[in-house]
């Protein structure tokens, strides 16, 4: 009996591209989508840049019934889910309702919706607060709305581990599939681009005050000054390799081969941060060694101390300068619960096409970081196995090992037994 669990569908909503094809074209060519915030006037705030999705029209994709009751992050997540299903060739209406589950990542919930309701409360009174506020802000709302829209009554859940959430949700999806749920929708989509969300994020003191879109978010660079936030993410369809083969799935993007998660030591505790151990746990789970890995998709905090910790973990586990390391989120900003989910989708597309997308804007890599950062231009190399890293504020570390389907794109055959 195979325990292999694979990804068979992707739905991408990113600042530099809606849909898999447009996103991948933009990402391979290193298209920057970071710019001055346009959704509200950022001039009175110390941070003014973001990766915004500017071409998403909810009413073009969703029934009007859903629009008044959903935050933008949920609208994006629902559309990404529709696209992921279409990509996977699964028609959810034809699958038994208890055979499908949903696990998404969340970071802060539907901030923009909540802000509008606070405005109503403050300026017009409690009777003006929408009944939909009861769920539209909530961490689990994307999971709930995805499950309702697609008639999915299998296990549902939400992982709240800030920017590590996309990897933790994927791992939970794999667990559910192994325990017997045939298909699980996973991933994460966030949209924290309103003043209330902005001031909440500012408290982390990790956002870049730089107002130059080409110089604000520079992970592993000597001039790293923090990160730029963004909106969007990705949704993935996860199922057993065996089931994908049996139903003749249009493609298998790759196998979820390994996963590891750790917590950092508490404040004031002098001990090594947990990232290296998360990578090693993931490699052991995949039953491979570091030498089997062809590329790393880094967390790329853009904060000096955190970059150093990550560079050290990568160089220690994989060897100094041995394999390419990249941070494609330099094009979109950090997407909170959508960030690691989008990195997973990017890594799966990289496996499929044999291309490591670039880290953009970084020009002066910190010389004591012994990693081979893919700067400026994409690199074409054969990829069989990649590692995705993610960290969440508060001490969350996670690593996922993704392995290519052995017979290449379009195969419907067994991935691994």
């Amino acid at each position, binding site marked *: 009996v195979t325990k292999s669990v694979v990804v068979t569908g992707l739905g991408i909503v990113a600042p530099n591209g809606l849909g898999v094809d447009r996103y991948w074209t933009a990402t391979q060519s290193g298209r920057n989508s970071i710019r001055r915030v346009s959704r509200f006037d950022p001039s009175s705030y110390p941070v003014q840049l973001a990766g915004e999705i500017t071409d998403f029209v909810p009413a073009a994709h969703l029934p009007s*019934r859903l629009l*008044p*009751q959903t935050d933008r992050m949920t609208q994006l997540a629902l559309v990404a889910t529709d696209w992921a299903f279409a990509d996977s060739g699964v028609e959810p209406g034809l699958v038994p309702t208890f055979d499908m589950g949903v696990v998404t990542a969340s970071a802060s919930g539907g901030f923009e919706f909540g802000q509008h309701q606070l405005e109503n409360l403050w300026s017009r009174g409690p*009777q003006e607060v929408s009944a939909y506020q009861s769920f539209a802000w909530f961490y689990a709302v994307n999971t709930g709305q995805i499950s309702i829209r697609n008639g999915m009554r299998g296990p549902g859940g939400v992982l709240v581990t800030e920017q590590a959430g996309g990897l933790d949700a994927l791992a939970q999806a794999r667990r559910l599939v192994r325990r017997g749920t045939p298909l699980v929708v996973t991933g994460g989509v966030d949209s924290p681009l309103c003043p209330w969300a902005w001031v909440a994020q500012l408290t982390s003191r990790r956002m870049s005050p730089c107002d130059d879109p080409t110089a604000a978010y520079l992970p592993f660079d000597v001039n790293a000054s923090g990160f730029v936030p963004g909106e969007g993410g990705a949704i993935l369809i996860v199922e057993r390799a065996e089931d994908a083969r049996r139903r003749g799935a249009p493609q298998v993007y790759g196998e979820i081969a390994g996963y590891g998660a750790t917590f950092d030591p508490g404040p004031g505790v002098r001990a090594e941060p947990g990232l290296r151990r998360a990578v090693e746990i993931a490699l052991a789970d995949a039953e491979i060694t570091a030498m089997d890995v062809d590329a790393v998709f880094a967390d790329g905090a853009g904060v000096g101390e955190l970059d150093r910790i990550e560079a050290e973990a990568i160089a220690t586990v994989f060897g100094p300068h041995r394999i390419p390391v990249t941070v494609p989120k330099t094009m979109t900003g950090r997407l909170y619960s959508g960030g690691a989910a989008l990195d997973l989708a990017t890594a799966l597309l990289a496996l499929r096409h044999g291309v490591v997308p670039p880290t953009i804007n970084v020009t002066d890599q910190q010389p004591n970081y012994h990693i081979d950062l893919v700067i400026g231009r994409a690199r074409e190399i054969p990829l069989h196995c990649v590692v995705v890293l993610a960290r969440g504020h508060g001490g969350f570390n996670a690593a996922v090992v993704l392995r290519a389907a052995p017979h290449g794109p379009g195969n419907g055959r067994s991935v691994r037994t």
Partner: protein
Amino acid sequence: MTPDDLIAIIRASAGEPEGGALDGENMDVAFDDLGYDSIQLLEIAAHIERKIDIALSDNIVAETRTIRELLLVIDAAVAGRPAR
């Protein structure tokens, strides 16, 4: 309140029904069959209360099953009578 006024409120607060548009044909179709759930009915009721400055019972979700029944409840409230 006219049926058209009520339909405009429903449309604004809860959107169009599942698989169609709101019109005179939907007056006797159960909210459930139109795809409106209990929270959507609460939102619709709140919009009505604000629009014409009346108070509707919290039981409105349990008591009304169709747009026509909702209209009757509104008319009763406007007339100052207890609803049904």
